[in-house]
């Protein structure tokens, strides 16, 4: 058993990371729910690392669309895989930053001496989002739920509460802010307009993402990060959304989807995706004892809140500087920069804010801008626009890609930034171990 509240601060290290291919929603992974996808990723992780089940202390999992009957997806993964019952598990939800949140929680637990070996990651099955019937129906059927027998009088009473029918029919799930009622795309459209991000700039950025992802896949550098998943229709090996042949001319033909005369299209917005990713974290001592070579470690992380009614997705422009400050480093010190591409416009708003002295002064209380993000360092192996965004899997994907890249490229530092619904921002600084 690990020592609780160890006197010396321990470091948690990233040992390995693997993900399922990311495929279009309602596609190849239709029959795999969030738990099934999580099992696929975790199984692949254990196969790749050949880690014996007995060494696993816990699973910390992230999910946005949680199965209402079994919201602790992490625990269900452990049980489905037949891991020892002692493998405790929790599931965390922080919108698109759920995966990173799960991983940093695992790292924190290891640092505190609460665990030595933790599997952390996340996944989402957009295809299996539950469709909710109006709550009036649930309330009207309460007598049934409570086991009461319905005579004709009670039945009529129940029926009378089922009107107007519009209030009990299922509602189409939408990615919208509960507090403002605004679709995320609409909020981003407003951000693009306010910050002067043109359609051309967004399309060009999206094309870059696709080309970089395609090149990465073609060169094989991402091979070790992906594991094939068995489905009823056969094994799925590859990410299904990348378009190597896309171009600004092709994207220019798409119509705006969130506002008349707007700039956001399906081409420059991240698509609905299914997938999962898992990362193996250990204490440095445990990694050594079990014979694993760590890839990287967290130097810092940061979670911030911004007003969702103002600029919903600007969070990373605050969380990235905070993570850098906590790490005692600057943006210029970073060898790699990974920013989750919810929308091309969102990334461009964030990089614009990071480069702005006025933003730094007014919003961060600093004298100087955080810095210009070097395009050569940004999302070098593609981003969410091309690879897809199974909400909680994205954090796991970014940590895996960054950690592996630090070793492969012989680099030292990487900063990650993720925006999230609800007006949240997340960031982390990784360093080579």
């Amino acid at each position, binding site marked *: 058993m690990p020592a609780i509240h160890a006197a010396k601060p321990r470091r948690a290290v990233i040992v390995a990371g693997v993900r399922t291919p990311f495929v279009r929603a309602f596609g190849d992974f239709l029959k795999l729910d969030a738990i099934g996808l999580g099992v696929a990723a975790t199984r692949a992780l254990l196969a790749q690392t050949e880690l014996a089940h007995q060494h696993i202390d816990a699973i910390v999992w992230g999910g946005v669309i949680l199965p209402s009957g079994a919201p602790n997806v992490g625990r269900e993964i452990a049980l489905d895989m037949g891991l020892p019952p002692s493998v405790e598990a929790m599931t965390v939800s922080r919108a698109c930053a759920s995966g990173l949140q799960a991983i940093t929680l695992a790292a924190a637990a290891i640092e505190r001496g609460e665990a030595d070996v933790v599997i952390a990651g996340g996944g989402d099955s957009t295809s299996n989002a539950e469709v909710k019937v109006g709550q009036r129906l649930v309330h009207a059927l309460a007598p049934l739920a409570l086991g009461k027998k319905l005579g004709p009088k009670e039945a009529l009473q129940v029926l009378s509460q089922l009107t107007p029918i519009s209030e009990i029919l299922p509602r189409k799930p939408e990615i919208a802010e509960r507090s403002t009622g605004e679709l995320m795309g609409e909020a981003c459209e407003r951000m693009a307009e306010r910050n*002067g991000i043109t359609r051309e700039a967004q399309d060009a950025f999206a094309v870059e993402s696709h080309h970089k992802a395609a090149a990465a896949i073609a060169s094989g550098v991402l091979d070790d990060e992906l594991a094939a998943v068995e489905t009823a229709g056969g094994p799925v090996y590859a990410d299904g959304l990348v378009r190597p042949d896309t171009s600004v001319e092709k994207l220019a033909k798409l119509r705006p989807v969130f506002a008349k005369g707007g700039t956001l299209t399906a081409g420059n917005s991240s698509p609905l995706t299914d997938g999962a990713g898992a990362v193996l974290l250990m204490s440095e001592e445990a990694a050594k004892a079990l014979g694993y070579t760590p890839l990287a470690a967290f130097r810092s992380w940061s979670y911030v809140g911004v*007003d969702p009614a*103002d600029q919903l997705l600007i969070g990373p422009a605050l969380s990235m500087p905070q993570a850098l400050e906590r790490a005692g480093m600057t943006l210029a010190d970073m060898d790699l920069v990974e920013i989750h591409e919810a929308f091309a416009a969102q990334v461009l708003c964030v990089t614009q*804010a990071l480069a702005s002295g006025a933003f730094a*002064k007014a919003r961060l209380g600093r004298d100087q801008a955080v810095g210009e993000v070097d395009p050569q360092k940004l999302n070098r192996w593609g981003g969410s626009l091309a690879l897809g965004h199974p909400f909680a899997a994205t954090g796991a994907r970014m940590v895996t890609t960054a950690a592996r890249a630090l070793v492969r490229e012989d680099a030292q530092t990487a900063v990650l930034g993720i925006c999230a619904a609800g007006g949240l921002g997340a960031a982390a600084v990784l360093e080579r171990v």
Partner: protein
Amino acid sequence: MADFLINLSKNPTAKGLLGKVGVPLPVPLRRADGPWAERPLEGRVVVVGGAAGALLHPAIATTLGRAGARATLVGQDEAASAYAEAAEAWGRPLTHIDAAPDDLRADAIVFDGTGMAGMADLRALYDFLQPLVRRVQKCGRVVVIGLDPEEQTTPGAAAAHAALDGFVRSLGKELGRKGATVNRLLVRDGAEARVEPALRWLLSDRSAFVDLQTLPLSAGEPTDGAPFTRPLDGKTALVTGAARGIGAATARRLADEGAKVMILDRPDDLDAAASLARELGGVPLGLDITDADAGPRLAAAIAEHLGGLDVLVHNAGVTRDKTLGRMDPDRWDLTIAVNLSAVLDLTAHLDQAGALRDGGRVVLLSSIAGLAGNAGQTNYAASKAGLVGALGKLAPALGQRGVTVNAIAPGFIETRMTAAIPAAIREVGRRLSALSQGGLPRDIADAVTFLASPGAAGVQGAVLRVCGGSFIGA
């Protein structure tokens, strides 16, 4: 209290007649509900201009950016970078133009006249505002910013800055029919870093009934860091006469912004006070403020229930109207006692007892009756004018420890008190203002809340009329 004109105007014949006679139909004012918002000017187009040498563009740019407004700068090229920076910082598009296009709709207009050095500079005011006046939207705002004429060194400069007062009063009377207000922000030497909260308030929907006024800002510490939401979190307040009317509305607004409020009223009204206190999480107190021991009892109650007092609002007041020839001594004595003596005695006592905290706020409720007079109100007007006189001494004295003392002079406000006025006189009272309507108790409450806030530290010794641009009085 139904607005008679609104009802009349539903009758086409009457409406036509009213139009012929030139009686304007009032525009319903746009007022913000609930607590102060993060971005009270979200999406509003604010057109900004100024005279050469304008000093406050960085403050104006920050105010507009932070409040969510879309700034449109006309001319003033030297100031463009300040607005560009604010646009970058807050994610707002900046429009910088030489002249306003025909289809420009201005939700608000700000003129920075702080650079004016002589009378020739006044022309900039005309050049900027003349083309824009037609574009002001219903319930819009015009804020003209100038320096203190008394601090100028030449007659020409003093004239230019004093001219803004007459300009504002006249333009306000022209724009009142749109429900739009026109006010002046007077920035004294050393008050430049105290502009943002005042400008933000004047441009917001919280100053809907403030019209034709000058809000002066005095020198002192910058108001940087003053909160724009929940400004009274952790603060305590006392409102006298708070069981109903303007006092109750004031207590509600102060509580909305986070204050713990003591609701004071006569022992007869303790039920109403207690029920309001329950609603607001405050403390009721039944006390006759003219009692000899009111001061000590109040200080003790504050010590017991609030710890100390940050905001003191003297709202309690009575009228005992009679022409002087028919006024018996009791009417005179009671009115002076409640409206004037009690206010001064309690303030002095709380100050000496150490109950009023440093950096606190005292707000006196005067009245335009006190400034202009009314037949039958020699006692009332004397008491309300007396408050203004006392203000001149209280402000410097309490200002030594950061306490601001100001007076609000309500105009015609729809309350129980004004409902008792004979109908014809009441109608006239309502209409004799630029906005052509009576105000609501919440208009006074909004003004008190602003004065009570940390951001209003620059307002000291001022008499702020909240009167909809009343024609009565100077």
